[in-house]
């Protein structure tokens, strides 16, 4: 009695494992059809990556398996994976993520030819990753709720009671951390913390998961203003059409710590078994062809290669007057995270 039921159960188990096999088989079979497949851990927006990946595969015949997630999660994954990481290339939105990987020795040194494609000040000081695009932080505001003249000149003003209940904030956005680091570099930890606490109070009820939501809700008139990177505004406009755009963007005063240039970059994993192919992908990202694709895409980020213009309608990169904080000073962002935790924003 029991034995036959046990064997039946074993049969069921085998059957369901077979089903697991079938459910798994489909994608890997199609992937095997191509000669080389590299895996891209993509912390960049899919808008930016999609067109690049397609063009690269068309050109080289190398397939790219894309794993898109928040850059923080990706860095965490790679650090957990260590030498077993399936990733060949990592492409992030901000420099701290790459600096963190570099600090753990997980990235391979890039050939000089790739590094020199974009200006050195936008790349890794050690040379393990290269800058691909840049964005600049701006104020997004809804003129129906706040007049342009009432906007702060400095990001520090956003922590004052003047902006109570008017501020939208996405504390979990990695785009926000460079601003914190910049403030902390200039004004020290204590002042930065009280500034963050002030912002938290001002943003009560308007703490959002991401900058897309900040932009969207400012545009819908739910909250007066927020701090975003400029391209969120352009993307929203592309999504919903110019006539539906009620929000506007404004710059902070030149060299204000709220006025930060965020660099997005890419690197090759030290453990990658496909280093040649991976380097070709990174090289493509910073090549003229790749940079032009970014320029024409719906990404609205600044291409960094010389001679590739800013996306249509945006101020040229060279005309910007951001806080002069360097990539090295921005570091791996752990100080910003600590400050966010201390202020109860994380």
């Amino acid at each position, binding site marked *: *009695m*029991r034995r*036959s*039921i*046990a064997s*039946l*159960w074993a049969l*069921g*188990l085998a*059957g*369901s*494992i077979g*089903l*697991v*096999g079938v*459910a*798994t088989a*489909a*994608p*890997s079979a199609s992937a095997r059809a191509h000669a080389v497949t590299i*895996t891209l851990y993509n912390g960049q927006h*899919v*808008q930016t990556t999609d*067109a690049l990946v397609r063009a690269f595969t068309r050109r080289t015949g190398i397939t790219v*398996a*894309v*794993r898109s*997630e928040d850059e*923080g*999660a990706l*860095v*965490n*994954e790679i650090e*957990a994976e260590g030498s*077993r990481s*399936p990733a060949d290339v990592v492409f992030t939105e901000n420099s701290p993520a790459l600096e*963190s990987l570099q600090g753990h020795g997980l990235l391979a040194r890039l050939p000089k030819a790739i590094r020199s494609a974009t200006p050195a000040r936008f790349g890794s000081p050690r040379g393990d990753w290269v800058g691909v695009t840049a964005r600049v932080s701006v104020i997004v505001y809804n003129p129906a709720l706040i007049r342009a003249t009432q906007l702060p000149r400095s990001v520090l003003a956003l922590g004052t009671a003047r902006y109570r209940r008017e501020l939208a904030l996405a504390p*979990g956005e*990695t785009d926000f951390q460079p601003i914190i680091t910049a403030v902390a570099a200039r004004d020290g930890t204590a002042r930065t913390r009280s500034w963050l606490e002030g912002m938290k109070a001002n943003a009560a009820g308007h*703490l959002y*998961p*991401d900058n*897309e*939501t900040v932009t*969207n*809700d400012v545009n*819908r*008139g*739910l909250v007066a203003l927020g701090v975003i990177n400029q391209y969120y505004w352009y*993307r*929203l406009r*592309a*999504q919903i*059409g110019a006539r539906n755009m009620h929000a506007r963007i404004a710059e902070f005063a030149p060299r204000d710590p709220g006025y930060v240039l965020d660099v997005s970059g890419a690197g090759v994993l030290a453990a990658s078994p496909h280093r040649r192919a991976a380097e070709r992908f990174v090289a493509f990202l910073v090549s003229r062809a790749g940079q032009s694709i970014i320029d024409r895409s719906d990404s609205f980020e600044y291409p960094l290669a010389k001679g590739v213009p800013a996306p249509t309608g945006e101020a040229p990169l060279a005309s910007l007057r951001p806080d002069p904080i360097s990539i090295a000073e921005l570091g791996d962002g752990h100080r910003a*995270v600590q400050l*966010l*935790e201390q202020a*109860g*924003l*994380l």
Partner: protein
Amino acid sequence: MALDTRVASPRAARPARVAARATSAGKVPPLLFALALAVCVVLAGPLVFLLLEAASARDVGALVFRAFTAELLWNTARLTVAAVAACVVLGTGAAFLVERTDLPFRRFFAVAFVVPLAIPDFVVSFGWSSLSGAISGFWGALLVMSLAVYPLVYLPVAASLRNGDPAEEEVARSLGYGPWRTFLRVTLAQARIAVLGGALLCALVILAEYGAFEMLGYQTFTTEIFTELQVAFDLNGAAALSLVLVALSIVLVAGELASRGRRGAERTRAPRHPPQRHRLGRLRPIALVGATGLVAGAIGVPVATCGYWMAQATTAPLAGVSLASATAQTAGYGVAAGALAVVLASPVALLSVRYQGVLALLLERSTYLVLAVPGLVVALALSTASLRYGGGFGYQSAPLLIFAYALLFFPLALVGVRTSLAQAPRRFEEVARSLGVRQRSVFRRVTLPLVAPGLAAGFCLVFLSVVTELTATLVLRPTGVETLSTQFWSYQQNLSYAQAAPFALVMVGLAALPSVALGRYFDRLARRQLASGAVA
């Protein structure tokens, strides 16, 4: 002469010893016990891992015991309490209307009230929040969660009301209770265990919810755990925070068990006739409007919003996997996970149904703990464990994801398998054998046909949960694979609502099929029990 005159009725003679119930067989077969134990150990794995991970976290104390934690706890607690209360009111009210009143279109509502089960919380939240930006924060979360989760109360309460013994209500009426007091004191008391069980499920779901709150900008423990991982790159910290959540959930589960055990409201006999329906009279239009409103809010808004966004032309379509490929992928995962979960659940269910004992009960109950762990945490535990202890075996592979699904939804499969085994008590097998039929044939001719619908029900429950799962899928899916929910999520995150909408609709459709089938199965089961109870 002393008189010793006794008149004894035969029934007054009581046996000195009460024999053990012959039907609950004594010894548990060791093989079965070993299998069930193995399954339970596997299920406990993520919890144990979590403990280890949290223990090795640096500054756990600093992270867990700070003002922000209290804030999150407060956010989580008040929303859970409010939303569970709302779910209890909505679910019980809806069940009462359908099962006990002359509400028009009852058969339609009986199905429509269950369908929200198939709509992921984050799609309900998408529907409402894209309708109006004002739907956000605490009130938005309360609205969305109440509408998305109330079927978890509705289902058990409806079943309990359907099977409830009308005799008790009739007695109450005869003792001078009005209809309203009878409802409160008797009908609701009968449904008490069902309400409690449903409320517990609601609370657990709300505790573990991520997508909907993320969209609504409402911070809870679970959203913070996610953020902790994404921003702070801190698995130990996330594990420590998860433990708070797990502790909270264990308190809930234990509380529910304790309050259930205090008064055994088990019915001793089957009802002789179906309960009577109350006439709503002048309240009928109001009830109809209420029921329609609930359906409109829980199904109408999300589906209509999806339709609206699909009709909008967009200038910037994002690339992604095709709808067909995501559907096939999702369905494949659902089928495999459903089968695996049912197979894993069967030894535990068999043990707990056929060999009732303390050990069997403990084993069975221990598996419910997995309900208390958010899917995200289970996923992380699995992926980290595979890297750290498994040499990367199964990492980012579909089998690991499917295994995670099977773990996460194991309790659902267990419910289904348990129900089905209860449909096939051992006496049927014994009768069959006494009729000269061999073991193997008994299984094929008696046990399997009796058990199959329940197994299918367990399978369907797991399937629909897999289809609508988001967080574990995000963490564990193989690179390059998108399911309906992850593709929806990625479009939604980029505000590409028009592209997100069809994925939401297909997801709802795929999940709705089994949930309608489930509703019909449990309905038939109840009817059959009613019919066979009527002759007993």
